[in-house]
């Protein structure tokens, strides 16, 4: 019997996704498709009659706006919302802003492969010369971060290492108090939570790409162990596609 239910939602397409650029901490907005995905996700939660008590999101607008679309759909705009940099997307350092071709041209295919396959090798740092250094590292929203906390780049390991303390110290106590939690965030910060919940290996989490705009439901026991695999909410077609996509990932050729 599930003691708790947790819902995660990964934001949909951003304007930069459209251009295939490494986004990371760049504050790209949702594209029209991404907005549609968020509304559809909200509708799925509404159809299933979900109620929440508290919401968490990052400080990047594509996640915040996704949450807003969802809360509007389920008519729970009044819920308390906590925003944290710790749920931000992985920081892609010097790769931020580059598209796939530019990255390969700049660094070579071999290096790109290493970065893609490594759990703990970070991309190059974003230095002061970088186009986005000022707009990201010096952004007012990060003013309270210490020098140690503010990243200039992150491996997946780094992302998870700064996301989990927030999960453990802020979110878990709320779940244990019986609060129904909704988290709207990014591919890599959500990977951190999923890896932790399911006790996945580094290899396994790197294979997992969470579907976008689709509410992901975990039923948890009183120790916050999942009672089964993650469930997706939505119409039959959408859910089927998402499940197949996730299943195929593990088998994808490298």
């Amino acid at each position, binding site marked *: 019997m599930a003691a708790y239910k947790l819902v995660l939602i990964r934001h949909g397409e951003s304007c930069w996704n459209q251009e295939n650029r490494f986004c990371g901490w760049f*504050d790209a907005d949702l594209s029209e498709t991404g907005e549609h995905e968020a509304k559809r996700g909200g509708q799925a939660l509404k159809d299933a009659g979900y109620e929440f008590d508290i919401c968490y999101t990052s400080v990047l607008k594509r996640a915040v706006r996704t949450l807003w679309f969802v809360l509007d759909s389920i008519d729970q705009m*009044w819920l308390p919302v906590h925003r944290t940099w710790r749920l931000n997307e992985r920081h892609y350092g010097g790769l931020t802003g580059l598209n796939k071709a530019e990255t390969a041209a700049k660094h070579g295919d071999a290096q790109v492969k290493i970065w893609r396959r490594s759990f703990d090798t970070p991309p190059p740092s974003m230095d002061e010369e970088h186009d986005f250094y000022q707009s990201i590292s010096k952004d007012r929203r990060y003013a309270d971060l210490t020098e140690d906390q503010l990243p200039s780049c992150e491996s997946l390991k780094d992302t998870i290492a700064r996301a989990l303390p927030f999960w453990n110290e802020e979110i878990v106590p709320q779940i244990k108090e019986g609060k129904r939690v909704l988290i709207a965030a990014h591919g890599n910060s959500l990977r951190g939570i999923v890896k932790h919940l399911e006790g996945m290996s580094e290899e396994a989490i790197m294979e997992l790409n969470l579907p976008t705009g689709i509410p992901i439901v975990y039923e948890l026991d009183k120790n916050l162990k999942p009672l089964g695999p993650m469930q997706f909410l939505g119409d039959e077609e959408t859910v089927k596609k998402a499940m197949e996509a996730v299943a195929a990932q593990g088998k994808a050729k490298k």
Partner: protein
Amino acid sequence: MSKYSLFLLRHGEGAWNKENRFCSWVDQKLSEDGVKEAQDCGRLLKELGYKFDLVFTSILSRSIQTAWLVLEAMGQEWVPVVKSWRLNERHYGSLIGLNRAEMALQHGEEKVKLWRRSYDIAPPPIDESHPYFLEIYNDRRYTTCDVPKENLPRAESLKEVLDRLLPYWDSTVVPEIRKGRTVLIAAHGNSCRALLKHLEGISDEDIASVTLPTGIPVLLELDENLKPVKPRQLLGDQVKIQAAIKKVEDQGKAKPTT
């Protein structure tokens, strides 16, 4: 000398505003025009270069929606938004859902004038027989307030609005302002008025003639004791502001339809 800047914003048009009905604690979202008012306000604040640190709203969707639209227009979606019933619109009791014509018919012009102009006379309380009673009191958000649901108002005078707003202002908003944080309060006509009365020391008589236009940001520059150092400033294009003021005043004068 101005030490702090505080911004107040009265949300724009909801569906019932168009029909001149008292919406009060009924939870309506903004109309298309109301959405546009909020977006215009956000664009203006962005042009003027303002940066918020914190936003307070009520727990009624139209004020939250307004805050979200403003933050979105300013690219400041990351700014924390804190919500409280203590910033809700005035509770209009049994008058909820009535338009001004119906009110005059049901209760007489004199009574209506009294409720609208007096500071401390509340309309008759809402009760279970009222068509909107369950819609309001069965709503889950009212189980999350800092008073038990049974102690929430059934009707309010403007004085009672300030009575439940002031503790929140003192305990939660003031400390943030004193930390030097630029605060936006996105709320309702009467919750904004009540706060203005308190901050500006407006008398019980004079507050009756103070109305804020919708969708126009109000800037209050406060000294270290949180007293205004100059008159409140309505920001933006003066022609637009005058039109907004007129719109609100005309609503108050709406003739009953025959």
